[in-house]
């Protein structure tokens, strides 16, 4: 599955919810699927400090593909983190660099990615892309 396909899947999953309450409830469900970052990887360098919530993010590079693990102290943030990782994990650095993450907008959670909410998610996406660039240079 490509990054595009995975985004399409998510958009379809969310289509059945037109109420934000249901969407949030589903996000809370999804947060449970997040590949949780190892205790030992929860170090300062892996912490993304939004003013409102924190995100920890780690990346491993194996067989040409990047896999992410993460966590957040806020559950809504965590649910979105889980979606981002589902979309981007197990992709090549180039795929991640090229990825256009339109699904957040499509499923109506755009405001969570606004710099004004300061929840660490925007910085997290930046960080994921930076990992991809770093790993690519090592290829």
């Amino acid at each position, binding site marked *: 599955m490509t990054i595009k396909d995975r985004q399409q899947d998510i958009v379809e999953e969310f289509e059945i919810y037109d109420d*934000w*309450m249901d969407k949030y409830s589903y996000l*809370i469900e999804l947060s449970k699927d997040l590949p949780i970052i190892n205790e030992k990887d929860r170090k300062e360098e892996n912490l993304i400090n939004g003013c*409102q919530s924190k995100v920890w993010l780690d990346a491993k590079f194996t067989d040409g593909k990047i896999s992410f693990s993460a966590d957040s*102290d*806020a*559950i*809504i943030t965590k649910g979105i983190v889980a979606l981002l990782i589902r979309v981007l994990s197990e992709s090549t650095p180039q795929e991640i660099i090229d990825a256009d993450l339109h699904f957040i907008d499509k499923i109506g959670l755009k405001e969570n990615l606004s710099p004004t909410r300061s*929840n660490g998610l925007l910085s997290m996406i930046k960080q994921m892309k930076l990992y991809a660039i770093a790993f690519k240079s090592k290829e």
Partner: protein
Amino acid sequence: MDFDIKKIRSDFPILSHTVYGKPLIYFDNAATTQKPECVINIISEFYKNYNSNVHRGVHLLSAKCTEANENARKTIQKFINANSSKEIIFTHGTTDSINLIATSFGDKFINKDDEIIVSELEHHSNIVPWQLLCERKQAKIKVLPFNEKGELIVDKLKNLISKKTKLITLNQVSNSLGTINPIKKIIEIAHSNNIPVMIDGAQAIQHQKVDVKKLDCDFYVFSGHKIYAPTGTGVLYGKEKWLEQMPPYQGGGDMIDVVTFKKTTYNELPFKFEAGTPNYIGNIALGKALDYVSSIGISNIAKHEKELLEYGTQKLSEIENLIIYGNAKNKTSVISFLINGIHPYDTGMVLDKLGVAVRTGNHCTQPVMDHYKIPGTVRASFAFYNTIEEIDVLYEGLLKVVKMFN
């Protein structure tokens, strides 16, 4: 005067708005307050009819704006019962006022190894300027702690005061907990040790009568935007005897008397501390906002807000596992809380969707959060235009939050 909540709410255009199709319930008043129509209108009115730069102008419009700006100064003087309008300096907000004092008073009166006592309840704006000063001067900050209820432990003040203490600075009301501090008592203790006191009134002036003469504080500062006035306005009250001795803060137009490249002399008070074109339209609107508050009556405001606080406290306490931070005997209408296990951001995001605006996070008081060992709280802060019914909506919303996240 009767307190007609319907009439009052109709004075504030934003209060009849909806967000996400739900009536806006604005409980973020400690962050900033909404503006009554008369304040919004005076801004337009002045821009449309009189706008012109103040001071030294020979033409009619300039004279009008100068006069209105100086009348606003007198309104502020009366509002806080200062001795003279010379003691009222226009600034851009509480933070600006405190930085002015920290720099100007600090440069003159604080030396190496001197000490400044700051309370543990302070907003960052009343901590960082003193840290910057202490770094410059190699002086020290000593901290007056608070107890579990969020009340300052005034008994400890005596042990903190030393021959080296040059200033005590604290807020009258804590923005994150709502505690009303016993500043009169603290000022008395300070003065009996010949120590001046600066009061951060950012969260007090809009909730209760402030009389700087009775309080006898040496400095009192507040922000316009928290008392129904525009952003970018603020006040610094200082006793004339201090302001006279203090060097200028910023340099520029209007604060000078004679400028040559050899020697520059400074203007008299209050202008010595007002460099550059002032926010005169903002100042004029601040005067109007204080007139509006006076017309409602600050004691009527306090009474209604007390009812909101009592009702809100009782209602929120009914929610299981909800902990209120800040249970001082004397409180303004601020309720800071956490529901066990639920992150404030999650609570805030859900309340937002229900139309309820609250603030979440550390509220620029990290030391207070550190004290309780929490990352932040959800804070609902009420103004006199809020209602019991709005608190009910908050309560219902919190039940929803509990259901969603537990």
